[in-house]
């Protein structure tokens, strides 16, 4: 027997598991009971299925609106908005430095006028919207609130999520704008604002996904993410205005599910239990609901490969099943052609169908936590939780997340891991079908992909010019001035000011610029 068999995150695996491997019963109470190892709800998915949410957004607001309406017609139950990089990094579409990126990896948003088109005919009190936005998240949230107001929707009825997790941007995704300190303040502002005014909106989706896609193991992904979650909660609690029970429900999480089936399931079960314990023991939450770990996932990402690309359909299906067995609340399944292109309508629909087959044909959603009590799954969940604690304690000893990021420690750990994965694939130690085993000489299929329409970009520029021409210059300068004044103070919540700016049709770039003047910009440590 090979004694060195281990999971991808380095957990040693026995040949088989038995009753002696089970944890004490109090660690695995019934589903819906603290610490929620077996899920947040006693009835699993019977009460409510996970949200099927397909990430999309491209080109102009008109094109994206059309795709959203199509996805909703096809049975999607929530929207997931992808923004272009200028929007994510705080530039307007007419900034000459970013012209080639307008509308490319997502939809271009410059002002409230674009959001009005993006959500045209989509009732914001009935549909929940997830927005992958970080550096400029508070501004996009302001647009969303202002759009709801234009539709006549009560703020309290808005539902959705902004990613709003800046710490991981410094490590791996890169859409930072300001330095960590003021960014944390702005995030705490959004958390307070949502808790107070739009309680059904997740002010933050603390994301491990990008650590994972940059090379982290499943254990690092979860541990770093929980550390980020702690950092954000401490920021809000430190202001002394809210207790954990007042805002814990605004905090959600987000991960990548890759291919190691049982390890992924254990990752989610262990993360859910660990977070519940942190919220209770560290932050003193009184209500059990505050301790619930709610998360969304992407099935796909770096686990997909370019050679033999149709294999990705199979990978995504397994990953989606692992996510559901792990108790996911919302899921995006990647399309098979994503390693080289923005998905076509056909490949995006197939990815959606993958979830629908899982939800409606396989029966995995009929019983809460079907793997609960499995010798192997429970033992792996315990081992994973131990590993999480180990990584987190190590980070705390080194001074916490913000320091780790500023020093480049996390960046280095992740690139090391990425490099060792690459070496394992090159040496054949880790098998990837079609990549280092069972290869074929077949040419890569020429995928159609989405072609950016130059006319769309020009239309975006025209609309921006039109907005600047027709808005009230007095309102713009008054609201921007008020924003600058509030930003200069530490204790004033900026959300009401950002909503005023949005309503006055200030642009993303204008608001970002005002805050850059106050706060400066982040400078990155470069390590590889």
């Amino acid at each position, binding site marked *: 027997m090979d004694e060195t068999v281990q999971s991808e995150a380095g957990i040693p695996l026995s040949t088989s598991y038995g009753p002696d491997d089970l944890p004490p019963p109090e660690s695995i109470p019934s589903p819906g009971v603290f610490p929620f190892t077996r899920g947040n709800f006693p009835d699993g998915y019977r009460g409510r299925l996970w949200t099927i949410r397909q990430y999309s957004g491209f080109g102009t607001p008109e094109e994206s609106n059309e795709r959203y309406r199509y996805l909703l017609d096809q049975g999607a139950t929530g929207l997931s908005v992808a923004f272009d*990089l*200028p929007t*994510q*990094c705080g*530039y307007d579409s007419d900034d000459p*430095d*970013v*012209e*080639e*990126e307008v509308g*490319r*990896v997502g939809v271009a948003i410059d002002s409230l006028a674009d959001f009005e088109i993006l959500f045209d005919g989509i009732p914001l009190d009935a549909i929940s919207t997830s927005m992958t936005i970080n550096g400029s998240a508070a501004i996009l949230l302001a647009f969303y609130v202002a759009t709801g107001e234009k539709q006549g929707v009560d703020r309290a009825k808005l539902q959705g999520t902004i990613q709003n997790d800046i710490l991981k*941007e410094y490590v*791996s*995704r*890169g*859409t930072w704008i300001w330095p960590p300190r003021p960014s944390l303040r702005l995030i705490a502002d959004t958390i307070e604002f949502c808790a107070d005014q739009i309680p059904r909106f997740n002010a933050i989706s603390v994301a491990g996904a990008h650590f994972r*896609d*940059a*090379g982290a193991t499943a254990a690092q992904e979860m541990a770093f993410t929980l550390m980020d979650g702690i950092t954000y909660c401490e920021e809000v609690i430190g202001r002394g205005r809210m207790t954990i029970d007042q805002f814990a429900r605004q905090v959600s999480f987000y991960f990548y599910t890759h291919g190691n089936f049982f390890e992924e399931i254990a990752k989610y079960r262990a993360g859910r239990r660990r977070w519940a314990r942190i919220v209770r023991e560290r932050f003193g939450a009184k209500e059990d609901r505050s301790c619930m770990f709610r998360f969304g996932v992407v099935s796909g990402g*770096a686990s997909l*490969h*370019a*050679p033999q690309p149709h294999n990705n359909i199979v990978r995504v299906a397994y990953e989606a099943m692992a996510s559901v067995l792990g108790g996911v609340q919302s899921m995006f399944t990647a399309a098979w052609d994503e*390693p*080289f*292109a*923005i998905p076509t309508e056909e490949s995006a629909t197939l990815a959606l169908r993958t979830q629908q087959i899982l939800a409606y044909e396989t029966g995995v959603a009929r019983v809460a936590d079907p793997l609960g009590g499995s010798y192997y799954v429970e033992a792996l969940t315990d081992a994973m939780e131990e590993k999480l604690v180990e990584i987190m304690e190590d980070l705390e000893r080194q001074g916490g997340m913000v320091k780790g990021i500023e020093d480049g420690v996390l960046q280095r750990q992740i*690139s090391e891991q*990425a*490099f060792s994965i*690459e070496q394992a694939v*090159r040496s054949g130690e880790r098998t990837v079908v079609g*990549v280092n085993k069972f290869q074929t000489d077949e040419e*890569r299929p*020429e*995928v159609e*992909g989405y072609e*950016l329409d130059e006319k769309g970009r020009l239309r975006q520029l025209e609309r921006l010019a039109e907005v600047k021409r027709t808005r009230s210059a007095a309102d713009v300068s008054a609201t921007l001035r008020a924003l600058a004044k509030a930003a200069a103070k530490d204790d004033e919540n900026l959300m009401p000011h950002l909503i005023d700016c949005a309503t006055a049709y200030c642009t993303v770039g204008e608001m970002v610029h005002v805050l850059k003047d106050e706060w400066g910009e982040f400078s*990155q440590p*470069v390590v*590889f």
Partner: protein
Amino acid sequence: MSSPVRVLVAKPGLDGHDRGAKLVARALRDAGFEVIYTGIRQRPEAIAAVALQEDVDVVGLSILSGAHVALTKKTADALRAAGADDVVLVVGGTIPAKDVGRLQDAGAAAVYPTGTPLETLVDSIRSL
């Protein structure tokens, strides 16, 4: 004995995905090249300035945002404007096969789409 080949690995534009760029940088370093990495979100002019200042032989762009044609062209122009015409420009990333020719027209000496094995890339740069 000739001095080692100097390579600047660069991320132009706003795309922050640099797992690939870092892997390539490390593989080249392990293969005996002298490697500098710019970090993400660099302007083409800034890349050209570093290329000149560091006296590199090769600039390797990594682009996953879809803006590869425009950014390659801008970087090639910036290199020329900086007087670094002798620097060889190569490009890797999420690049559809149909764009390879367009990148060559824009000034790329070699193109490495997603899925290119690292050995292939290293050998190719060595032979440039």
